[in-house]
């Protein structure tokens, strides 16, 4: 089944081509890309701008440093290995705990130190980097799931993607791993996307495999009752990433740490369009509203307040869910 282009246009859906030409090319200056394409750079910059990120523990820059890796992660309870120039979550390995020679992933499966060494070596060779350039591996602290948050997701840490346009947050979604998604937060692999009300941080609309759902398939949690804690702070954090990078159109991925509160996980200069599916509403009206503003407010707080105010207008919101919803299902359809 297909939809008519006129339908998508009417609902303000942003297509890939328009996103590339009209927003990414027009608002993201090429020379700024390395700031977000290189996670190490983003991290160092974030420290400079006082934006909270997971603590950096170690950087592995050369093959010979891999041998020291073991000693240096010995005392860490858990950690994440990431390629600095990776994209789309490729090459990220999360270790929840270690026991002797075994490292345990969130799924419970154990891997050996050899496996991790090879993974590091692959990262350095540029296997996960854009264009195959040589890379460095960064090792950072594991995020400790906030108890309020832990109950949302089947496993793994739920993260929040906020699209920031000219410094204004314009759309947000929460991504929840499910059994079907194997602990990953990728929507196309079966994770749940929950569109969030920008003004309140509350669930508005939720989808799994692009189909509307009311409850988490594994936990039965009512998705539209989700309320993100520290919502204003999260939006402010995302909005400040604009000041930090100068990129006009970005996707900020945030998590909530039990001890440290909202943290910036990574930035994306080419955020995807699935957020529209999760929100059940298109991005274009919101982007066009911001585009028409003659001047960008200087302070992030003012921009956040403005966005919260403007985008609570029903004009920008999805249609309410039909009174009787079909049974939620974990089965993939289509």
């Amino acid at each position, binding site marked *: *089944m*297909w*939809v*008519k*282009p006129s*339908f*998508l*246009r009417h*609902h303000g*859906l942003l*297509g*890939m*081509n*328009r996103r590339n*030409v*009209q927003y990414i090319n027009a608002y993201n200056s090429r020379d700024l890309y390395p700031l977000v394409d290189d996670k190490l750079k983003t991290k160092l910059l974030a420290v400079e701008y006082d934006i909270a990120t997971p603590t950096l523990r170690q950087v592995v820059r050369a*093959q010979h440093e891999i041998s020291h890796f073991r000693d240096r992660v010995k005392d860490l309870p858990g950690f994440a290995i990431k390629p600095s120039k990776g994209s789309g979550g*490729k*090459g990220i390995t999360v270790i929840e705990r270690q026991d002797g020679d075994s490292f345990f992933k969130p799924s419970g499966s154990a891997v050996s130190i*050899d496996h991790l*060494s*090879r993974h590091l*070596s*692959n990262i350095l*060779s*540029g*296997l*996960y980097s854009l264009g195959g350039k040589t890379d460095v591996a960064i090792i950072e602290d594991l995020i400790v799931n906030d108890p309020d948050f832990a109950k949302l997701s089947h496993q793994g840490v739920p993260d929040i993607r906020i699209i920031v346009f000219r410094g204004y947050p314009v759309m947000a979604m929460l991504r929840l791993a499910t059994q079907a998604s194997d602990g990953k937060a990728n929507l196309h*692999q079966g994770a749940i996307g929950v569109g969030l009300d920008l003004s309140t941080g509350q669930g508005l609309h939720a*989808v799994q495999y*692009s*189909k*509307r759902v009311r409850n988490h398939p594994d936990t039965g949690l009512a998705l539209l009752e989700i309320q993100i804690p520290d919502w204003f702070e999260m939006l402010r954090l995302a909005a400040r990433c604009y000041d930090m990078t100068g990129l006009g159109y970005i996707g900020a991925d945030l998590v909530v740490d039990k001890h440290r509160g909202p943290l910036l996980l990574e930035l994306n200069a080419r955020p995807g369009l699935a957020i*529209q*599916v999760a929100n*059940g509403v298109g991005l274009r009206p919101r982007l066009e509203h911001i585009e028409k503003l003659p001047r960008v407010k200087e302070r992030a707080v003012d921009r956040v307040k403005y966005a919260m105010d403007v985008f609570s207008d029903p004009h920008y919101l999805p*249609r309410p*869910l*039909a009174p009787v*919803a079909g049974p939620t299902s974990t089965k993939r359809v289509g």
Partner: protein
Amino acid sequence: MNKQLPFYLAVALLVIAGLAIATLRHNELNVPLTPGVEQTVWQVEAKIEFQAYGDPVTASLALPDQPPGFRVMSEQSASPGYGFSTIQKGGIRRGEWSIRRANGRQTLYYKVQLITDPSATPAPPEQPPVATGNSYWSEPEATAAEGLINQARETSSSPESLARELIKLLNNSESNQNAALLLAQQSTAEVLVRLLNQAGVPARISMGLQLEDARRNQGLLAVADVYTKDGWITFDPRTGDQDTPENLLLWQRGGSSLLDVLGGRRSTVSFSMLQQTVPAQDLVQSQSYESGFSRFSLYHLPLEEQGMFKILLLLPVGALVVVFMRIIVGFRTSGTFMPILIAVAFLQTSLVPGLISFLSIVAVGLLLRGYLSRLNLLLVARIATLIILVIFITSFMALLGYELGISSGMTVTFFPMVIIAWTIERMSILWEEEGAQEVLIQGFGSLFVAVLAFSAMQWRYISHLSFNFPELHLIILAMVLLMGQYKGYRLSELRRFRFLAKD
């Protein structure tokens, strides 16, 4: 919209320039627009034979010079020991053979290749010729001629109609005493030309060759050239047909003798001919014009480089397909332009063997890569190993193909090995991280786009146009530029967002 105006102007300009240059090339150089257009080429050989006395010999033969309806493509002479040159003498082109000393029977050859070209017309004479006036008739003949001319004049209004009327009268010689008298001594063509000249219409005898495939020892036919306001018009004195009949090659026009031999006797000329149909493209190729425009023809390159450019110039077509499939349709492929490279390889292997080879190499490669991952190699070493293995696999398949009698097994070498090795590596990682489904989607996406690009590239019209009209690439460029500006939805998005249409 104003900001976009220069862009659209530039695009329009590219299209116009491409079309204009292509049209020019088509019109000026006769490069055919479609492949497989064939043109008739006549090979005509004049054989001159004579007996030499042992003295210096000069043989001079009238040569065809811009005959109407034909274009001279090339000419050669074969005559051992003789010097040969073509000279223009009194507006007539002649070939001259010369030798210091020759004895006995001599045979000289002149060979010319002619293309039929209905639009070819000889250049008009610089100044209108003058009728030679009174001919030397004997007394009774003069009266007969006078009578014929008067009779024809009454029923004609122009030089052409006069010629036609005279031909009619001459061909009715049984009932016409005057005509019978004149024709007793001379041929119809001669009489006709003399009568016309006497009537004040410039006329001359031309010698034509009736072209018929694979005829030998043919002689020339005399026809009459009559000068009208449209230039020289040829009349067949036997039938009265105006204009050069098809397949009549006017070998010699105007006056002088067909063959002069100094220092020899019993000279004869005979003609043999052969008809060939040659792809029009080959003709363009073999004709090396020196005019400025044709210098841009790729046919001037050595053959080896031409072959390379033939493929190189197809790449934009492949790129166009990829751009279309990605921007308008929204296909996912592994590696942006990898489908083009696969498609180029298919061009050399042909489709089915290419597909089978590609799939089996990648499949075997993936299996081996699965084992390699246990060896704990560094990435660069692993890719290098894969490259070597891929070459082994291809060699093995070539051998296997050879043993089985399928020679196309050999052609898998055209695949870009390094790219295949990288593809295997990336697919293997993709398999581990995203699962087999994603590998299949991207793998078959790439293959599908490659097959599409291949189909476009090997379509004979496209391969013909891309090489013979390289300027058409400006249009491809314009299309790519336009698609680069396309902001609408991709076809795949109409499916991707279909769930928004319902709850």
